């Protein structure tokens, strides 16, 4: 269990909350760059950390993330016109630039200084890789831009998708840290998913249902090593990095692309799951890219034109009891991402952690919560910048390796847990 006040501290991310302030120390994904594909394209509503905003791309290609509501009478700028270097409110024509500065109030005299004094709150919006990132904290403390490897490799080597999850961000993140569920919930995916199957390591995964865990504290977060029996004298290690606040990577399989997630709070009851897949040293093949678009691997098949999964809670995730009986899926829900989402949403929007009973094997989750809480309190009480803000911390990788039984992952493969340009991932 977790005490209720700690549960609240960790799950609430609106303005003025402890975890909200934590998230506001980092550059976080605000939307996919494909959502603003060209200059003067339609603006997009964005809600993150319980704040409602509008994202747009102006005539010069500048990105803006501004208060959703017009300073005049509070109309949503989603109904506005994105034209000639600004967003014009549809009601009375007030116009704003990408910084939220009002640049035109048509009803005022043409030499009036009225609009100079009107500014909507705004945040920076910057494209790195396939993502438009924002920083919602104190401008004076803006950190350097993110350096996660998936966002830095050439576009031909990387793919990112996004889906809505109707649950608090923390229970979604915890699923990314909890690697003991893979042998159950996702067991069929290891044998049939085009982005997983065929890896040497899969047989070790399926051959040992009782992994040992090592949770290693690291700058920026944790490395969680799950160790299973491999051969007589060796162990198969799957190593999952977690970076504060909400970045996780899945250990790779064979030569399949590496993947991971960002879990970004929309409000306290919903989050965006950004899912990336990339190859550090080679292009993604056409087949790999197509499989990702089709929702295989850790991606989801979304309703066209939306980021809402086809299998979602309004249709019981297309539960298929027959497929479950036939052994094609463990839970009856198809697709790894939605298997996770269905269970995490079933907990309710914010799971009541006072009712949990955790086991020793949940130590990774326990430690991650403790680190988050400690960092949030140190930020609140001492103004301490949390780990993971420093881009040097971003350069991590997951790994899947076979090691002699007497070796520890953290000592023997520490270099493989660092992103190194031009170096292939450690994966079996």
């Amino acid at each position: 269990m977790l005490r209720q006040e700690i549960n609240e501290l960790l799950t609430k991310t609106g303005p003025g909350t402890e975890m909200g302030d934590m998230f506001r120390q980092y550059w976080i994904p605000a939307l996919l760059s494909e959502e603003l594909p060209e200059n003067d394209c339609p603006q997009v509503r964005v809600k993150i950390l319980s704040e409602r905003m509008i994202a747009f791309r102006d005539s010069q290609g500048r990105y803006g993330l501004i208060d959703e509501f017009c300073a005049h009478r509070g109309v949503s700028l989603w109904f506005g016109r994105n034209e000639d270097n600004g967003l014009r409110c549809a009601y009375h024509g007030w116009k704003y630039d990408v910084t939220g500065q009002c640049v035109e109030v048509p009803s005022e005299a043409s030499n009036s200084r009225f609009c100079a004094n009107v500014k909507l709150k705004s945040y920076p919006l910057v494209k790195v890789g396939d993502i438009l990132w924002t920083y919602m904290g104190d401008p004076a403390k803006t950190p350097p831009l993110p350096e996660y490897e998936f966002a830095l490799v050439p576009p031909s080597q990387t793919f990112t998708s996004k889906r809505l999850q109707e649950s608090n961000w923390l229970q979604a993140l915890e699923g990314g840290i909890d690697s003991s569920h893979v042998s159950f919930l996702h067991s069929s995916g290891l044998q049939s998913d085009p982005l997983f199957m065929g890896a040497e390591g899969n047989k070790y995964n399926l051959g040992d249902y009782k992994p040992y865990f090592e949770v290693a504290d690291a700058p920026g977060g944790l490395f969680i090593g799950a160790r299973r029996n491999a051969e007589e004298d060796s162990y198969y290690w799957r190593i999952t990095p977690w970076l504060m606040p909400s970045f996780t990577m899945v250990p790779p399989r064979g030569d399949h692309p590496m993947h991971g997630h960002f879990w970004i709070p929309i409000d306290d009851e919903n989050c965006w799951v950004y899912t990336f897949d990339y190859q550090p040293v080679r292009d993604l093949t056409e087949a790999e890219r197509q499989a990702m678009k089709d929702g295989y691997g850790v991606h989801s098949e979304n309703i066209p034109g939306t980021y809402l999964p086809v299998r979602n809670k309004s249709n019981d995730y297309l539960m298929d009891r027959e497929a479950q009986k036939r052994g094609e899926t463990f839970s009856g829900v198809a697709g790894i991402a939605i298997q996770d989402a269905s269970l995490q949403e079933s907990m309710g929007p914010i799971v009541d952690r006072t009712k949990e009973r955790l086991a020793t094997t949940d130590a990774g989750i326990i430690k991650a919560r403790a680190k988050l809480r400690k960092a949030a309190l140190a930020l609140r009480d001492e103004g301490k910048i949390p780990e993971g803000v420093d881009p040097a911390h971003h350069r991590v990788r997951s790994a899947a390796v076979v090691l002699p039984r007497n070796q520890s992952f953290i000592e023997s493969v520490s270099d493989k847990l660092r992103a190194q340009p031009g170096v292939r991932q450690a994966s079996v």
Partner: protein
Amino acid sequence: MPVWSGPGTAAHASSAAELRYRMNYPLAPSRGVRVVALDSGAEAVVRQVSKSGWNKARFYVAETNLNTQGIQGAPVEVVLHGFDGAVASLNDELEDVDSTIMVATSDFGSEAAATIGAACSVRGIMTAGLVLGEDTENTVSALRPYAQVLLVPADDADLEAILTAMRAK
């Protein structure tokens, strides 16, 4: 594809409003957790955490003697010293236990860890190891074979958090 949200569907069942119908009844605490300090550095931390009133956890410092009882595969015999001065045998203290947490700051306790690990393993008791301090490498290799979960490094707050998460209050 059917889209409706009648009372039988996930959309309805997983709503915030439905959460309040989650059955409410006293939840059983853990059967029992044992926390064993394997060296004097760990002793201070375990003693500190033991003070916060855990109904279902007991706390000890391990003392090793030559194995006169001949426990199989165990190099030494372990005697457990409680912080109230009571002395107990490992065998007696592992009755009705779910998990044993070993806490260490060095590899000093590696033989005790082996004995505790073997005793837990035959009884199906889960083992965890908390490695305290900076210099963790030797401690980790000493505990690794005997702990299903290792936290490296850990601190006293982690011990509290784990005991709470397991419902040892």
